């Protein structure tokens, strides 16, 4: 059982929805992002999604693109990202961390070596945007064998015929992408998302978490209400980008998690 599985068991017992927050590792610099990550559990975050910066984030909107560039310009690397996770784990051994990014930095490191290092650092799961089920042999299967969750994205274009393929070999939770589009784009309509979540839940026992386009406590509440939880990324990253201090960012995160937890 990973920290992710344990967290969902705990939330289920409490009858609570999950609030998942995304920030980019090293944005705007190592120390600031570490301070934010350390503060997330206290701000009501159940699962931390940590972005691994990449030069070519094809599924991300401008907010997260620029966050990645800031991190890279500040000297962020895969090693430094793992170092950030280790630093967080010194004070928190329960909050799950999901590393989210693209395949090339991982492939460049070497899959076996990366998995050893990620596991040792205290990462619990991976979301790798450019690895669909068709490429499961690359990282998904080795990651599961290494005891990490491999969390897959399901999208509005994933029809019923394809859904079983997406759900096979998925673990931890299913991340439902609420819109066709990139991160930080248009807000999803809860009434559009609800039947999609039901469609997925009909085929899996895994929790279904919805992300993309959620920016406000109200939206977090509405979306979490029709799923097992929600993810907010770009809205938090925007706060950091606009120069807000760590405390201000964390209080914004708290307002979002309160929203989700009201659901």
């Amino acid at each position, binding site marked *: 059982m990973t920290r992710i599985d344990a967290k969902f068991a705990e939330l289920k017992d409490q009858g609570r929805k999950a609030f998942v927050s995304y920030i980019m590792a090293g944005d705007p610099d190592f120390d600031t992002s570490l301070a934010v990550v350390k503060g997330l559990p206290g701000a009501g975050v159940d699962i931390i999604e940590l972005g691994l910066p990449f030069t070519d984030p*094809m599924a991300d909107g401008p907010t997260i693109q620029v966050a990645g560039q800031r991190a890279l310009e500040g000297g962020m690397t895969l090693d430094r990202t793992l170092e950030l996770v280790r630093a967080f784990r010194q004070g928190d051994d329960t909050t799950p961390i999901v590393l989210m990014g693209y395949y090339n930095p991982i492939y460049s490191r070497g899959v076996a070596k990366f998995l050893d290092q990620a596991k040792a650092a205290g990462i619990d799961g991976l979301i790798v945007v450019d690895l669909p089920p068709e490429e499961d042999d690359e990282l998904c299967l080795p990651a599961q064998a290494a005891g990490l969750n491999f969390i897959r994205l399901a999208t509005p274009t994933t029809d019923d015929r394809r859904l079983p393929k997406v759900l096979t070999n998925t673990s931890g939770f299913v991340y439902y992408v609420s819109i066709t589009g990139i991160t930080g784009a248009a807000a999803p309509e809860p009434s559009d998302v609800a039947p999609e979540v039901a469609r997925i839940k009909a085929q899996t026992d895994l929790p279904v978490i919805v992300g993309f386009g959620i920016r406000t406590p109200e939206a977090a509440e509405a979306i979490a209400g029709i799923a097992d939880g929600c993810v907010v990324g770009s809205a938090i990253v925007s706060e950091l980008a606009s120069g807000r201090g760590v405390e201000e960012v964390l209080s914004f995160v708290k307002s979002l998690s309160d929203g989700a937890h009201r659901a």
Partner: protein
Amino acid sequence: MANDLFNSFMTGPDENGRFGDFGGRFVSETLMPLILSLEEEYERAKTDQGFWDEMNHLWTHYVGRPSPMYFAERMTEHLGGAKVYFKRDELNHTGAHKINNVLGQILLARRMGKTRIIAETGAGQHGVATATVCAKFGLKCVVYMGAHDVERQSPNVFRMKLLGAEVVPVTSGRGTLKDAMNDALRDWVTNVRDTFYCIGTVAGPHPYPAMVRDFQSIIGKEAKAQLMEQEGRLPDTIIAAIGGGSNAMGLFYPFLDDKEVSIIGVEAGGKGVNAKMEHCASLTGGRPGVLHGNRTYLLQDDDGQILEGFSISAGLDYPGIGPEHAWLHDIGRAHYVSITDAEALEAFKLSCALEGIIPALEPSHALAHVMKIAPELPKDHIICMNMCGRGDKDIFTVAKHLAWDMTGSS
């Protein structure tokens, strides 16, 4: 050997879109159903005589195919060795090989009921070809082009606009061809229902590398038949320039099983293939990685971050290369070399002076390699080089590099 399927180099990719370890389908889930349905449609079209009849009709009457196979007599005399032929794909409508592929993809888009076409472009040739065919068929066309390229290829930007396309200058990342491709993918992921992504080279997720190669293979098929007619035999060496590698793959593919034909791809060496990475030679200066839907050789740093290429030619300025080239490189069936900006400029000038052909900077790279090897080869050695584009779009760039005054006052 061509009939021996067990040893054929022409059977790839496999059902997962792999050429050896290269290629594949490294895209987000949102796009996965789209590329699977494209693959299905392409498989159907491939064996549909009606599809190819329409292609052939357009190739003949709209593009102007077959393009000539031209014996470059004065170039041959000047170099003093091998006999040099140019495959004249720069004479195609829109001035480059790009339209061969665009026609195929747009016909597929029409079969799939898509009404909006998006494309990325570097030098602007693929953008112009896409805008052209969209105008012909009344389709909405949006072209993503790096802001830096918009500036250095302004004649092509104007052409695209005249043809009714919307040109989106890409400022994300560093505003080059790879960023234009990122933004095109972001558009596609957002507009999945009505939009067809017309990729300009033999890269991207399966089935694009194979599909674009198949459409461009008309170049090699014609070249083979034309040289058989003019020389009574196959060439000894075929040469083409490579950015993503579509004109090269188009020339090479029909010759892959003709073992006696030596195949050479020419990458952009920029200021020289050195540690500073001021070049675009993915095969000679890069290593395998995953970008834009496929595994191939990429310019990247030790941490797997993608590096910007550098070349005088906007059409070669891409940090990757088509996966089939990566495979041909690894198995040794084709050889890949690099040519610097300075060498390409010399070739550009020589083609103008000796043959009355203003080449694009992309095939100028191929010609520069011809100039290196032809003098050392016997007079009965036949080289066929793909003159894949004309140089009208490049005259301002070349003038700048040669420090010529273009105002007409001197």
